[in-house]
């Protein structure tokens, strides 16, 4: 009788424990998918919490910008922000093969458009997203320091006329930006995730969007 009581107690305890663990998992999932909750560090990108020990707002924002710069200067993004008229390709950037140029509208030359090869989604080794094209000449990042790129992306004259809020939205949700995290298998993705990147970008904007000195190199 006593043994049966102990067994019953164990079963009840196990059921309660299982329900509690399931509840915790549910809560954890909810938090990690929330737009507002701090997301965990992932794929080489630090989380907001990793910067919480930096008490000065500006210093913290400048530290966060290093994570942002690691994305912007990554070949997945920078290859199509060239200083000239020809994009680069590959993990070690080389001029695009076959030869392509930006053309009048940044979508390629007549007869040889970006969309001639790049479709709306990756196909085998060929990268793809809707509206595949080069960044306009005024958005060139090639050869620039983090501070120069930072000043550039904030400047409506050189960022497509965007406010900081619109720029944040662009970084968080733009389909072509999302390509950075979703290249074909043979190409290295940019660090982190678009959600975490968007969260860091928002935090940087909220802190006044400070830029590192233009002369400071990576």
């Amino acid at each position: 009788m006593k043994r049966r009581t102990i067994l019953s107690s164990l079963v009840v305890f196990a059921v309660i424990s299982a329900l509690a663990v399931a509840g915790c998992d549910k809560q954890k999932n909810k938090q990690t998918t929330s737009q507002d909750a701090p997301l965990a560090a992932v794929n080489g990108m630090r989380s907001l919490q990793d910067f919480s020990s930096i008490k000065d707002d500006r210093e913290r924002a400048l530290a966060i910008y290093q994570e942002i710069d690691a994305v912007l200067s990554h070949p997945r993004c920078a290859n199509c922000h060239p200083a000239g008229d020809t994009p680069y390709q590959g993990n070690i950037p080389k001029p695009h093969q076959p030869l392509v140029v930006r053309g009048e509208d940044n979508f390629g030359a007549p007869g040889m458009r970006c969309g001639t090869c790049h479709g709306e989604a990756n196909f085998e080794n060929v990268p793809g997203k809707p509206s595949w094209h080069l960044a306009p000449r005024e958005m060139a990042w090639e050869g620039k320091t983090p501070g120069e790129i930072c000043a550039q992306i904030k400047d409506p004259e050189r960022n497509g006329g965007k406010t900081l809020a619109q720029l944040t939205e662009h970084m968080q949700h733009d389909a072509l930006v999302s390509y950075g995290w979703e290249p074909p298998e043979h190409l290295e993705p940019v660090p982190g995730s678009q959600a975490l990147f968007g969260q860091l970008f928002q935090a940087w904007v909220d802190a006044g969007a400070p830029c590192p000195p233009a002369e400071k190199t990576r």
Partner: protein
Amino acid sequence: MSITLKINGKEHTVDASPDTPLLWVLRDHLGLTGTKFGCGVAQCGACTVHVDGNTRRACVAPISGLEGKEIVTIEGVEGPEADAVREAWKEIDVPQCGYCQAGQIMSAIKLLEKKRDPSDEDIDLGMSGNICRCGTYMRIRKAIKQAAGDLG
């Protein structure tokens, strides 16, 4: 899975996996063998077709993204630019082995639609993705210029 594609103005329902490249459907399912397989990785231009008015490499265009689009191949291409290119190609006797020429012609037509009087540089940039192992580039350039002249 069956997918309906509009090719050269006519609807074709084919039974193929959605990730099948258009080139395979053209050649193997529909017998439209004018469009050639060259490299299979969008590096040579032999498989160039037109999709919604732009050049597209059929070897890297999965049919899942082509439903409802206007696909034109070398067998069905028409219009003043196509006529002018065809005549110039014959007159100048552009092809040598001919394998790449369907792709060359499809790109040349789109170049002329957008650039009525292309310079040498326009031709080089517009045709840079179409490779000819026989090296007929000079005749291709000459033919495009002649076609441009004929178009006026």
